[in-house]
């Protein structure tokens, strides 16, 4: 397409905000915070994407979905770049993304990561410390961890002691 007809990058960000995460389709790729940059290099659109987890099996599908979406909007020359640093953490999930997760039944991540204070974090948790995860169904904070890992690499399994429902917690890294 001629240079004058290149869509503006804010429009492209809008298009990307319509692309759902393949494993948690209630949030978009921009909610998840994995699109790092969108820019034109000549007449080639360069989209920079960062992986959530090193081994996340959805990474390939995410790239395919980005490509499909942008091609459907008429983008012809597209390059997808992988960027590792700064590493993605759950802090990159937007406030809107957190609300959508909660409404969907997944408890959004609380602040902080395991890498910040490995054993200190563990001990405070064992002592019934300050980590409270709210049940996304009934809002109770009377909840307990069932397993540190869950149905996808990014989630842990929790259970509510009040409404007794199990739920996914978007784990912090």
């Amino acid at each position, binding site marked *: 397409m001629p240079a004058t007809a290149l869509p503006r990058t804010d429009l492209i960000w809008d298009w990307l905000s319509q692309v759902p995460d393949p494993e948690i389709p209630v949030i978009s790729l921009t909610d998840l915070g994995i699109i790092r940059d969108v820019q034109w290099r000549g007449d080639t659109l360069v989209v920079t994407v960062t992986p959530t987890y*090193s*081994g996340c*099996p959805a990474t390939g599908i995410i790239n395919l979905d980005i490509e499909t979406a942008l091609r459907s909007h008429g983008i012809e020359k597209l390059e997808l770049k992988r960027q590792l*640093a700064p590493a993605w953490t759950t802090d990159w999930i937007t406030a809107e993304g957190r609300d959508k997760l909660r409404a969907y039944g997944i408890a959004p991540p609380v602040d902080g990561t395991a*890498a910040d204070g*490995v054993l200190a974090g563990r001990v405070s948790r064992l002592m019934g410390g300050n980590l409270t995860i709210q049940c996304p169904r009934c809002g109770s904070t009377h909840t307990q961890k069932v397993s540190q890992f869950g149905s996808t690499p990014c989630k842990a399994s929790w259970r509510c002691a009040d409404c007794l429902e199990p739920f996914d917690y978007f784990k912090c890294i």
Partner: protein
Amino acid sequence: MPSLPDMTTPNLTALAGQALADSGHVQVPAPDAGQDALVEWLQRMGDNGLILGHRLSEWCGHGPALEEDIAIANQALDLIGQCRLWLGLAAEVEGRGRDADAFAYLRDAGAFRNLLLVELPNGDFGVTLMRQFLFDAFHVELLRALKASSDSRIADIAAKAEKEVAYHLERSADLVIRLGDGTDESHRRMQDALNRLWSYTGEMFLDDAVDQAMADSGIAPLPSSLKDAWDRTVAAVLDEATLARPADGWHHKGGKKGIHTEHLGYILAEMQFLQRAYPGARW
């Protein structure tokens, strides 16, 4: 078919140019000694993740509880994902047209550079967990130090992997404590596992010429420099788990140089089967 050159007056420059054009390969400068050491070291990083990840994946569908089954499979996924980054970088630095898959599927046991600890059979759930804890405690210190690597590609991978591995350590430390300080049966099994694995932990902290070359260029820490922090983590967790630290003595070694236990060959026979039986198969 080009005509034969006149043998009396060979035009070497033209012939060399023709040979290059015919070969269809981009010429890659031969790696210097420093790059060889870096490729070697990157394979150690990648192979630890690959082999431990494969071992963990053997539990898939066999875990003692559904949640543990899922947790182990997820850790395998993290480790294999990290392995892709390390071996991908090894391939890039090596510059001979290999990719991460070629390293994983087309090397024989003698070319693998993982620690012996990670290739040991899973044993019971206690052995698997104890091995994971002993390795996680080392792995997290290594990655933490690598975040300051003089090679930004390595620092970037380390920063990514550290977050995942810190999470692994939280789980493995928790479970070692719960099972060590649990029933008589679980305590006995965890102590047995520790006694059995202890002589494989020394290899993590051995320095060799490759490690020295990496340390000299600021790329990676000397493994021996990680020992104090590992000792502190292990002491704190074993203490809480009411487990007795075995006496230090003779240690197994060799994995980093490609001298492995008999177990590695069986892992590769399974892991590499498809590419060996159907070379170049894709899906």
